[in-house]
């Protein structure tokens, strides 16, 4: 078990990189997922079709395959995903700005995939608002956008937040795949580094990695439980 202490810096570095990709992917997925959710509940049929198509594709495809498409398809299209080299953001998240594009590719795959689930979590919240609320808003003459903004969304987030949290927890665990698609130094890839290259025994390394993931996911889960309890009381 001495590897946990001796190579703490490697674990810490892996933790930091995984945290970075998770924060960025969560942000991206929440934004994209919200857009897709609005499409899916829009009164305009073609927009609804786009939203539904998106969810059907990305919710039903293995993340590994999405990662393959990002890591091999984007270069084939001549893209290095340079649009993600966002000035300012790449100061904190240094991998966004590197010449090697794999961090950006993995991020894109994780965002595209997770956004489909975020969309469904948001939509389940919207569906939890009694239809009479939106009907009353429409009958007052509120437009679709006003209806969402002033009536439906303020009431739906309560029902969305717990499923959303589960989606983000799943995303954190899914991020373990990025090491297999060229991202060097995230939490799971450190296992490969420490065992194959440096010869440490696998189990202690795996325990170290697990602790790293648990540090991210357990507090998030506890936070969600608290919110759920508070809601139960409010009801």
């Amino acid at each position, binding site marked *: 078990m001495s590897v946990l202490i001796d190579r703490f810096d490697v674990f810490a570095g892996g933790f930091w990189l995984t945290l970075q990709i998770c924060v960025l992917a969560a942000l991206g997925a929440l934004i994209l997922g919200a857009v897709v959710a609005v499409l899916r509940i829009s*009164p305009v049929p073609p927009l609804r079709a786009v939203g539904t198509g998106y969810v059907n594709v990305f919710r039903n495809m293995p993340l590994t395959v999405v990662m393959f498409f990002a890591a091999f398809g984007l270069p084939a299209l001549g893209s290095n995903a340079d649009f993600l080299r966002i000035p300012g953001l790449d100061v904190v998240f240094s991998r966004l700005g590197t010449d090697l594009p794999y961090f950006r590719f993995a991020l894109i795959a994780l965002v595209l995939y997770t956004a489909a689930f975020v969309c469904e979590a948001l939509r389940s919240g919207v569906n939890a608002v*009694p239809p009479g609320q939106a009907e*009353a808003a*429409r*009958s*007052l*003459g*509120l437009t679709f956008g006003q209806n969402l903004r*002033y*009536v439906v969304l303020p009431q739906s987030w309560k029902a969305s937040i717990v499923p959303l949290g589960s989606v983000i927890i799943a995303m954190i665990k899914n991020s373990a795949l990025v090491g297999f698609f060229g991202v060097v130094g995230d939490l799971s890839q450190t296992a490969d580094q420490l065992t194959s290259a440096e010869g440490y025994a696998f189990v202690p390394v795996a325990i170290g990695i697990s602790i790293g993931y648990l540090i991210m996911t357990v507090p998030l889960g506890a936070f969600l439980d608290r919110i759920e309890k508070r809601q139960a009381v409010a009801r």
Partner: protein
Amino acid sequence: MTTGEPLIVLDAVDKWFGPLHVLDDVSLSVGRGEVVVVIGPSGSGKSTLCRTINRLEPINSGTITFDGQPLPAEGKALAKLRSEVGMVFQSFNLFAHKTIMENVTLGPIKVRREKPAVARERALALLDRVGIANQADKFPAQLSGGQQQRAAIARALAMQPKAMLFDEPTSALDPEMVGEVLDVMTSLARDGMTMVVVTHEMGFARHAANRVIFMADGQLVEDAPPAEFFANPRSERAKDFLSKILTH
């Protein structure tokens, strides 16, 4: 009571819910200032009829005209039309996360772009009129059903609508609260508001309606002044319906 061209005109309206023919060739016109009460057994299409007038339910064929204009398709124009037609629901549908005052001022401020102070002033006057001015800062769940429904009426009136639709406004209320809501509706009717009221309250139909519409199986079966309808229903369906509800 009726002046000029009618405010609401339905012409040969048909609507299906799947295989169910909920509105079968319904034609109806409601004049300005007229109070039309729609009665009939449940499942007869009366609520659907009420909801087609502001297009909460789209129709399959026929035309509906409001204030000389055919109902527009979904979009800005329809939103504008809806803002001119007040609607009161069976289940009140007050915005649960907003106070009564916010419920009543949301439409005027966001749809009509009125100044909040102006909207609040009118809201207070309306809440006073329906007898719940002292509840303005409470949330809907803190009010009784009768108070909630009166707040919902105030919310609809705050848009200064040309007509009001009532979809079974007292059906979800405890018996002792029905009267307070009907009182508000009766006073609105006296003030000349154009109203379409779906209800089971025969007393209201008798004393406040200009016309009673009787519906059964999606068809408009009778259309008569209340005195005439209740004294001499012409159709067997109406006789049967009245015999069932008036004997108790």
